[in-house]
């Protein structure tokens, strides 16, 4: 493959959308209210839509006669490059909104920068995605504030979620070799650059939500290198179930 770095760069972005979309999809019909149920399904739908655009592009440049579904469903766990944050389970609604918020702030920054890429397809995907991601961020930010500020119980639960998820945030700003190569070419975004802006923004929201900023300086990473948490295998066994059980069929 000539564009190996580009291929891996795209997957690095797209896998986050796929896995987070998959997690949100699990919630469908089980939300705390009809309105939040609809919103979470909607976000999942947006993310799966973005995933398709990225994978279709990746399939095109792979030169291996791959389809979007081959990329989505037929890789080994070690080949998925999503960050650990997005694969974390839907422990409760506080976790769902916390995970979403911590990802959305980063995601919007990424989309904004990706609009300046030298790769036209990525620019087009970013331009379409940015509207969706802005909405996701507004939604999750509002809920973090609501839950943080609401009742004593909701404050505790939201704090528990932020404390639990905080250690996965640093990975968002790490660059893989493919990322670096693409940054070099003006195609990729140097995500390490917005680390500070990210923590400033997140901290502001958490403060407004009466939440304590975790002080721990210990972070966990690995997803970008394909070393995932123990949750990932179960997520994939659901995701890949049909494709693995009935190989080489069209649906």
């Amino acid at each position: 493959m000539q564009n190996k770095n580009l291929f891996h760069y795209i997957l690095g972005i797209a896998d986050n959308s796929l896995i987070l979309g998959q997690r949100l999809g699990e919630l469908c019909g089980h939300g705390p209210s009809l309105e939040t149920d609809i919103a979470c399904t909607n976000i999942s739908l947006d993310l799966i839509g973005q995933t398709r655009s990225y994978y279709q592009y990746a399939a095109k440049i792979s030169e291996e006669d791959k389809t979007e579904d081959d990329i989505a469903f037929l890789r080994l766990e070690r080949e998925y490059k999503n960050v650990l944050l997005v694969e974390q389970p839907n422990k409760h609604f506080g976790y769902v909104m916390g995970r979403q918020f911590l990802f959305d702030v980063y995601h919007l920054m990424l989309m904004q920068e990706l609009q300046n890429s030298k790769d036209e397809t990525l620019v087009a995907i970013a331009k379409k995605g940015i509207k969706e991601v802005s909405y996701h961020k507004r939604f999750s930010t509002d809920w973090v504030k609501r839950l943080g500020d609401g009742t004593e119980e909701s404050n505790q639960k939201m704090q528990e979620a932020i404390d639990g998820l905080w250690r996965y945030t640093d990975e968002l700003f790490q660059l893989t070799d493919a990322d670096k190569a693409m940054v070099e070419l003006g195609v990729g975004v140097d995500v390490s650059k917005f680390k500070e802006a990210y923590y400033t923004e997140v901290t502001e929201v958490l403060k407004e939500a009466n939440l304590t900023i975790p002080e721990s300086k210990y972070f966990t990473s690995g997803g970008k290198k394909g070393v995932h948490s123990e949750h990932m295998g179960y997520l994939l066994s659901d995701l890949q179930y049909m494709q693995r059980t009935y190989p080489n069929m069209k649906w």
Partner: protein
Amino acid sequence: MSDEQVKSLEEIFEARIARDEKIEPKDWMPEKYRKTHIRQISQHAHSEIVGMLPEGNWISRAPSLRRKAALLAKVQDEAGHGLYLYSACETLGISRDELYEQLHTGKAKYSSIFNYPTVTWADMGAIGWLVDGAAIINQVPLCNTSYGPYARAMVRVCKEESFHQRQGFEIMLKLCNGSPEQKEMAQDALNRWWWPSLMMLGPTDAESVHTEQSMKWKLKRKTNDELRQQFIDQTVPQADLLGLTIPDPNLKWNDETGSYDFGEIDWDEFWQVVKGHGPCNKERMDARVGAWEKGAWVRDAAMAHAKKKENKKLKEAV
């Protein structure tokens, strides 16, 4: 109000319905009309919400990204239908919390079809094709029903349902044109969903307790048996097109009536499921009640936050 006054209001009311005028929330209506509509609209709303569960069961396992997106969109549509049907119901003077309470305590019913399990991917096709197909037959006449908010909600519901039905048929078509395993999966789904779909159109006319009054109020335009015949006549040629066999050895075209004769429906099974003893009644209720109870702290927090915000605004204004 004297009996005579009520009687005269009732006469005016019935005359308006006869003239095909819409009844709106602020209009006077007989108590029985109000109650019947709360029962039917809420039953419909509950069916949409419970109906999210059997299909939601396959979102995480959909076989392609395209199918996953379409299924997500479909289940989201159902939630949307639930939302505006609950809103239509609320115009009759009942709150959403009260309606949920009725669902959760088993006082209110929902469509029994959703008490069957979705065990293969083909069930997503069969539900779209058959269940949404039967629902459309039930629902299209409701676009002209007498109660305005319900009729308007149904216009939108029907448009989306007919899209879902085509989508379901397309899933089946793909399976039927696929490998032998896929075709077998499609046939198996038809075998399991056919009879429950026929039951969806309600008990036979002789057993149906609400038909007469509902026909008068245009909540119903055709009887259950007429609707069922319409569904069968419409669906059999579609099964032929798919190359699938309807699981009814007595199904036969009747030249005289110009429609299909069909075998005996197992009404014992129907009543068993209606009474709460179907394969998934308990699971569906556990899921709904569970989501509601587990979400209580979230809803409480939202209310508390809104109240705090309002108080803050008031203070600032002072």
